[in-house]
């Protein structure tokens, strides 16, 4: 398969993930959308690495995956704290930063 096919697939997954982030009300749901977007990015990185025969993309993907795990852990911890305090994880109700 050519590079374009992989990139198109990644772009589609990215758009779906963005859609999830934009539409989900639940904070956990938003996190899941972010995971999808990160995956799309990873596909891009690996595809470019493969088609340019460059190891850097692979290594970057490794890093991305690790950082994503850390992010999910912290993000979910925050969600739990918010839930404890506000009794909700609906992003609509979390508007303390409202101007």
């Amino acid at each position, binding site marked *: 398969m050519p590079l374009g096919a992989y990139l198109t697939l990644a772009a589609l997954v990215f758009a779906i993930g*963005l859609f999830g*982030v*934009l*539409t989900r009300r639940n904070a956990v749901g*938003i996190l899941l959308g972010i995971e999808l977007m990160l995956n799309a990015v990873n596909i891009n990185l690996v595809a470019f690495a493969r088609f340019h025969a460059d190891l850097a993309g692979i290594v970057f993907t490794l890093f991305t995956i690790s950082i994503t795990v850390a992010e999910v852990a912290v993000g979910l911890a925050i969600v739990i704290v918010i839930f404890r305090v506000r009794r909700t994880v609906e*992003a*609509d109700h*979390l*508007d*303390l*930063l*409202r*101007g």
Partner: protein
Amino acid sequence: MTARIGAANLALLVLALPFASFLLLALVRPLRRSAPAAATVSITAMALALAGAVLTRHGSVRRAATLSPSTTWSWIPADGGPMATVGVMVDELSMSMLLLVTLVSLLVQIYSWAYLHDEPRASLGRYYAYHSLFAFSMLGLVLSPTFLQMFVFWELVGLCSYLLIGFWYDRPAAARAAVKAFWITKLGDLGFVAGIVMLWSATGTFDFWALFTMGSMGTLPVEALTPIMFLIYLGAVGKSAQFPLHVWLPDAMEGPTPVSALIHAATMVTAGVFLVTRAFPLFRLAPDVLGLMAWVGAFTALLAASMACVEGDIKRVLAYSTISQLGYMMTAVGAGSPDAGFLHLLAHGVFKALLFLGAGIVIHVFHTNDVFRMGGLRRHSVVWLPFVVATLALAGVPPLPGFFTKEAILADVLEVRRFGPFVLLAVTAFLTAFYMFRVVFLAFFARPHGRAHREPHVPLAMTAVCWLLAALTLAHGLQLAGQAWLGGHHEDAAPGWLPWFSLALAAAGIGLAWAMYLRGAIAPARVAAALRPIDWMARRRYGLDAVFAGIYRGIVLAFARLVGWVDRYLVDGLLNGLSAWTLRAGDRLRGLQTGQPQDYVYGVALGALLLFVLAHWRVR
């Protein structure tokens, strides 16, 4: 050479003394708050300055006329020599003025101590600080070796005049008079500064001596000189209260009487005459300006004398008389004999100061300025005698100085065949004698009005100063008489009938005043009725004040209103609009901060889209 340096140093010392006094009074607060200390400092400085002036005069040796009398230092450095210099110019002219200024300043300061004794202490300190500043400025003016330096001191004396006229600044009339004096003299100063700038661009120097040398060698651009000298003459018109800028001087009488004596009679107002005398070698190259000067001077003399005849306020009569005498001096310069004008300036400085100080005593006794409410002072005290001496001097009665100096002016005007100004001056001489004796008869000899003043108490300082000035006037007159009658100094120019003619004019004026106001043979009302149009006009000051007030209102107030409008609606409006707009915009923008994370994601996505579009566009 050493004598010259010595004279310059002495002159600098004379200049430095009042300045030091001013600095002391201005900067050391306790000194200023305590009136006796302030007066002591100021009077001591002035006394030392007077001593210095005397020493300058007697210590200087006569030198060759080709040597420059100036000692200068470079001031504004520029490529190819300094653009301007500062220094002192010690010659006959400046030394005489030095003597006059220091003498009158000292006497007036002593007199003021008694005259203003009831003033609050603090404002008396302020008064002496102003006086010291004035003395410094006036001395700097007369010692100036360059036009530029003279202009600086010129403005300084104008400032002091403003400050001292408005000394009682809580009186609206005084404050208004101060502003008026400042504005009207500024009109003339505009011409002065434009003139010296044009002079510089035409010749490249401000220095009097350099300019005189160029003039005598014929290297000055004579065609360009006429407008330049006209502009410089405008400065003298404002300062020396020549028509039509004379309107500020009568109002300046709102200041304390000693101030009027010093600034508005003896010294500052004569700065204009001093200027044209100092720059006479240049004015001589512009005969058109000289002719104008003679006519304007003579006309001013007559105009002011006519107004003095109908004025009831003793100080204003003296103010009009000052204007009139300044017109005399200007006519003399315009007729090409600055020496005669300057002699009259010196003599006038002394006896006019005496007149004002005498008037101060009269006002002190009667508590009014109105001559019609005075009278009978002759019976109580002899304080009137110095006043009468000065009046005789002004009226031109020998052997007092006014007679000789006025006659010299008349002779010189006649000599250059300016018959128009001569006639005007002759009529003025008659009127001068008339209005001065009108005041004397009304104030001293007429029957007392209201309650009688029993031997009024007049402080010794005031009478002593008056007596001293009277003695000086008399001595000066006798000296001039000696020169005229024994030395035969002026006889070659004047026709033999002229002294008798001027004496007759003075006698006629005095006689008319006697007949009208003392004897009652001629009712003043009938004279006024006979001369109805002139009387009507003179009482309204020929409408000139109204003209100036109209111009002031029309231009200055309209301009002020315009500026106010711009400030209120454009500047403030801009700022208010800007702040209101900022507030409203901020309110609107607040709405963007919903606090909802996903709305921010929308923004990020839209921004990314925008970048895509931009990138596509750039790639194409």
